């Protein structure tokens, strides 16, 4: 502005410049025009008409231009974002990226559960009928001929890779909707491995056949079949965990979906186009403490016993005494995780953690541990065992009838005398007993991380006297197999209890270690008391020659409990069990076997003990336990009064 003013000022000073000359011709023109008007007065109307037309034309042009400019403004400025976004969305392709579900492997890396990329193959019968030619386009004779051959050719390719005969697929590829028109969607097969579909796709492309499509449908495979299926669990038809660890760890196993979007044209992805990629985060991989080979052995041994005894179910646990790691957890009857439709509800239950039952005489190990830790009992304590004793309103008897017996505490355990145990337990305060049971982990879940874990129930410190009598030999309280196995393991492990674990480690989708529920460790009884209990438990094994595991000194305890029938709330049937631990010198492997409602034989020593013995005879060498070099001491079971 200032510069222009300056220029004007400067030019104004100089005469003869354009600025000063300017006005004169204008004035002249005006003068001329005035002169013209005066000179030709005869044609003012014509000129006015011309000017009017010109004005009108100009106005029209003005309107037209304004309208065009307005429209341009509308398109370019006001509606532009909408058009731009609709154009952008037209070329935008967005996909959900599916994460891989985490694997579950055993302690040696054997795959227990894994996801394999797979697809649901479906046909588009309408597209097949025109072999990919758009419905709006009329087909030429060659195209019509090819389209007519399409269903047969496609059915042949499908049969080649998906099994069956081509005729089996003819109905699918020519499926019609209820209204008679050709369908647009006809599922062919679920869970087709992606590789198989790649081969199908290649064949279809080679023959230029169209109309077969897919959607992702990953398949969860359980290569080991029924091995540990009650622990691993299963996924439902949507691929979500619905049982076992698959259910308990579903969120972590599933991972997080990702998203990819990019710009594409008919010819594919536009290079340098706008693209976003949020990668999917794969699920967490879990390593279990289970040993699948040991698991199979355990399942075989248990299954044979469940069948031979006619038991309704059974559970067995193999545990590392020194760490609390579960090496095998069997539940019978079992199922195949990949063939869920054939499974019954009894098969789907993990009896080892979901069943609470009265443990019977195995409980005597816990009772003796509490008594020994309190200094109330040693293996050689003398107990005068009468044929029966009264308790509350009833009588306590032993499983075998006898006259008065003079037993050592060791003898009480070896012969599994209910009366002897009760008499010894009566010397202990009830509240102290309740405290011990709680510290052994009874009455609460173990935190192993398996779904549906039962707590069992243990009477509190104010229990009645007859309840104290009952629970001393394993009645009037309920436990789960995993609680009982962990409790016995803690007692024989020098008195140090490790809460049981079944998940060893985990790695998330990025390969970073993830925290898993750790074992909690606590001292439950003294090392001296632990040695005394082991002494008593060895007498159980040395009582009969067929109880020993060849080559090893082992310790154990039998259990035969009457079962409470929930329908009548009375005792009906038995729970036969046995806990075996080896080697006696330095306990490292524990096997606990429970058979529910066996009908051909019901005593723990007769039906459960052989199973535990078989398991231990495989497990001890398997885990590098050296055969025992010493002979078991001669057990003194009775005394001379």
């Amino acid at each position, binding site marked *: 502005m200032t510069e222009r003013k300056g220029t004007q000022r400067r030019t104004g000073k100089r005469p003869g410049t354009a600025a000063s000359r300017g006005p004169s011709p204008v004035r002249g023109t005006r003068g001329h025009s005035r002169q013209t008007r005066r000179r030709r007065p005869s044609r003012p109307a014509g000129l006015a008409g011309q000017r009017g037309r010109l004005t009108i034309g100009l106005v029209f042009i003005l309107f037209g231009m304004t309208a065009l400019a307005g429209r341009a403004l509308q398109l370019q400025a006001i509606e532009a974002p909408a058009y731009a976004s609709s154009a952008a969305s037209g070329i935008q392709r967005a996909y959900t990226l599916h994460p891989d579900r985490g694997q579950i492997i055993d302690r040696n890396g*054997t*795959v227990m559960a*894994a996801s*394999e*990329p797979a697809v649901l193959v479906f046909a588009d019968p309408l597209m097949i009928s025109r072999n990919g030619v758009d419905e709006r386009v009329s087909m030429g004779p060659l195209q019509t001929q090819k389209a007519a051959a399409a269903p047969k050719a496609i059915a042949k390719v499908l049969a080649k890779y998906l099994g069956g005969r081509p005729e089996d697929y003819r109905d699918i590829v020519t499926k019609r909707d209820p209204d008679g028109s050709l369908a647009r969607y006809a599922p062919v097969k679920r869970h087709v*491995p*992606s*590789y*198989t*579909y*790649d081969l199908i796709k290649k064949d279809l492309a080679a023959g230029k056949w169209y109309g077969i499509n897919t959607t992702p449908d990953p398949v969860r*495979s359980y*290569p*080991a*079949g*029924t*091995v540990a299926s009650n622990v691993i669990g299963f996924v439902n038809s949507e691929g979500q965990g619905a049982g076992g660890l698959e259910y308990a760890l579903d969120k972590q196993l599933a991972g997080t979906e990702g998203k990819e979007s990019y710009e594409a044209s008919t*010819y*594919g*992805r536009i*290079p*340098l186009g706008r693209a976003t990629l949020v990668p999917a985060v794969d699920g967490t991989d879990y390593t279990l403490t289970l040993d*699948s*080979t040991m*698991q*199979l*052995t355990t*399942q*075989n*041994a*248990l*299954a*044979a*016993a469940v*069948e*031979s005894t006619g038991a309704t179910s059974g559970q067995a646990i193999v545990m590392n005494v020194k760490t609390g790691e579960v090496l095998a957890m069997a539940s*019978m*009857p*079992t199922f*195949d995780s990949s*063939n869920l439709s*054939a499974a019954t509800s009894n098969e789907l239950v993990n009896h080892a953690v979901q069943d609470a039952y009265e443990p019977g005489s195995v409980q005597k190990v816990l009772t003796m541990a509490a008594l020994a830790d309190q200094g109330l009992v040693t293996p050689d304590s003398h107990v005068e065992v009468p044929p029966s004793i009264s308790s509350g309103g009833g009588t306590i008897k032993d499983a075998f009838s006898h006259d008065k017996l003079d037993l050592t505490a060791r003898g009480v355990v070896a012969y599994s005398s209910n009366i002897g145990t009760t008499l010894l337990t009566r010397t202990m305060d009830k509240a102290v007993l309740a405290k011990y049971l709680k510290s052994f982990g009874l009455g609460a879940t173990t935190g192993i991380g398996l779904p549906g874990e039962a707590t069992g129930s243990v009477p509190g410190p104010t229990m009645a006297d007859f309840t104290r009598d009952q629970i001393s030999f394993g009645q009037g309280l309920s436990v789960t197999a995993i609680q009982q196995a962990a409790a016995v393991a803690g007692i024989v492990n020098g008195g140090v209890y490790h809460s049981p674990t079944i998940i060893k480690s985990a790695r998330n989708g990025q390969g970073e270690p993830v925290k898993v529920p750790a074992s909690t460790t606590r001292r439950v009884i003294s090392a001296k008391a632990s040695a005394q209990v082991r002494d008593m438990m060895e007498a159980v094994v040395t009582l009969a020659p067929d109880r020993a595991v*060849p*080559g090893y000194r082992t310790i154990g305890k039998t259990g035969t409990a009457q079962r409470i029938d929930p329908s009548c709330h009375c005792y009906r049937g038995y729970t036969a069990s046995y806990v075996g631990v080896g080697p006696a010198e330095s306990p490292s492997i524990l096997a606990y076997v429970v058979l529910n409602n066996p009908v051909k034989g019901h005593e723990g020593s007769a039906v459960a003990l*052989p*199973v535990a013995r*078989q398991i231990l*005879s*495989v497990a001890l*060498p398997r885990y*590098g336990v*050296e*055969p025992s*070099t010493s002979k078991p001491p001669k057990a003194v079971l009775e005394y001379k009064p």
Partner: protein
Amino acid sequence: MSAEIATPEGRLRPTGAERRRRPLLSAVPGSRHRMSGLAFAVVVLLVLALGLVAALVLNTTLQSQSAQITEKKAAVESLSHRQAAISSQVDVKRSPTQLEAAAARLGMVPNVAPAFIDLRTGKVIGTPHKVTGTELKGLLDAPVSAGIR
């Protein structure tokens, strides 16, 4: 802080005679070679044409590379599907159920009387003896529900 060195007066200052000889302003000599309008237009068009060709070549290269990437990605995906299919077969073969069956077919039986050799002393721990395969009959004759249905 920086300081400028003071220039000695008079030495750089032109004398009065010099001032008079040089005019206050003079025209800058124009470029001797002025390009003709036609040549300029040709050069501009050439540059434009070259630029367009270069852009076209670049675009085509990118497009073909993109196509290659897509092709390779598809190949990678197909190979990864193949790998998944094969490794799932391996998983099945590695499973204890299959291994046990394969071992049994080879005539192998569970050994319940193992012996350990202490390599430091050469001492044998345990009593090795021949196994017949009947020691753990229950394990071998387990009902089918324990393994594969």
